[in-house]
């Protein structure tokens, strides 16, 4: 997977349009899923995915494999753009969106790889094993774009408590996933 990503990045840097198409075919469904998860709005999710793919297209020369996979870069771009789109919404709506339960939807299609499904179920299992306050903290931060200070204010706890919850949550998630060989050690 990583070798394929590096090759796609190289071809995108050389302005090969087929590389962008290949990237989209490989990760378009995940990108759209993430945008939809953050925004809950198909129209805005489409715009977000388009912006993110074009950002990578124009910035492909800056891709650094040492800093992560092309998938990681793409999904970070989708998530960050989606969070930008959330800014005008109320705190209540953002909180509800970020904390809504994951629901299995219609299959993405035959292109979804078994390993991706395995990753998804493992991350969900890892999240499910976290204490509720830790799970909420990381979900609010990632899917809602809330700062630690905002999370502390909403929860009515000191900032240091939120920092501790997030650190513990990330450590547990990483340990859980590393133990299953799903993230780099």
């Amino acid at each position, binding site marked *: 997977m990583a070798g394929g990503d590096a090759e796609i990045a190289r071809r995108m840097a050389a302005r090969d349009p087929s590389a962008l198409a290949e990237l989209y075919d490989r990760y378009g469904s995940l990108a759209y899923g993430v945008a939809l998860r953050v925004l809950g709005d198909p129209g805005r999710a489409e715009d977000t995915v388009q912006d993110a*793919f074009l950002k990578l297209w124009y910035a492909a020369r800056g891709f650094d494999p040492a800093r992560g996979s092309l998938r990681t870069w793409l999904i970070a771009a989708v998530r960050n753009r989606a969070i930008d789109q959330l800014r005008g919404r109320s705190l209540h709506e953002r909180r509800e969106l970020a904390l809504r339960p994951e629901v299995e939807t219609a299959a993405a299609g035959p292109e979804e790889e078994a390993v991706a499904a395995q990753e998804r179920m493992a991350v969900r299992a890892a999240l499910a094993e976290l204490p509720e306050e830790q799970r909420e903290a990381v979900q609010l931060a990632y899917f809602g774009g809330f700062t630690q200070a905002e999370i502390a204010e909403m929860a009515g706890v000191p900032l240091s408590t939120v920092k501790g919850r997030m650190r513990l949550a990330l450590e547990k998630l990483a340990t859980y996933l590393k133990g299953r060989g799903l993230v780099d050690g």
Partner: protein
Amino acid sequence: MADQYDELGMLALSVRPVAPPPELRDRILAASSEPQKFVLVPRRRLPVSLVAAAVVLIAVAAFFLGQSLRGGPAGPSTFALTGHGTLAGASAKVTDLTSDKVAVVEFNGLPAPAAGKVYELWLITPGGQAAPAGVFTPDSNGHVVVVVDRSLEGYSVMAVTIEDGPSGTSAPTQQPEMTGSIA
């Protein structure tokens, strides 16, 4: 993966992929063939004055956005690049719009590169790894504004080399003649 672009990024893996509308693919591919709205080489795309105005607008917007979101002054950081060797006398101002993950580099006093050559901008990690950040050529006054469409986080130095045009290289072929700390 967990400690790279975003430590929280592993949460994205909990999201089930959803097939987007079929027309989105065509829309993205069509848009990719259009001229880039945010250009790296303004001389060939937009008047420098227009790019400079955009830079000012972005900086002002980022400043006030930072204030409104964080309740305090959180304007962009600035750094300086200094030329030496054949680039002695050239300089650049780097404006890091951290919250937007974009940096703007305004060069002055750059000599025209030799025929077939371009300037290439690099972001260098504390470990010495150089990542390409764009190629450019200055206008007849030695001026150019380059937009780096990525975060500077994790890099300690910005540098410039002269490489083969028009696309530059994936790794520097010479010691930089313009550098500056961005950490």
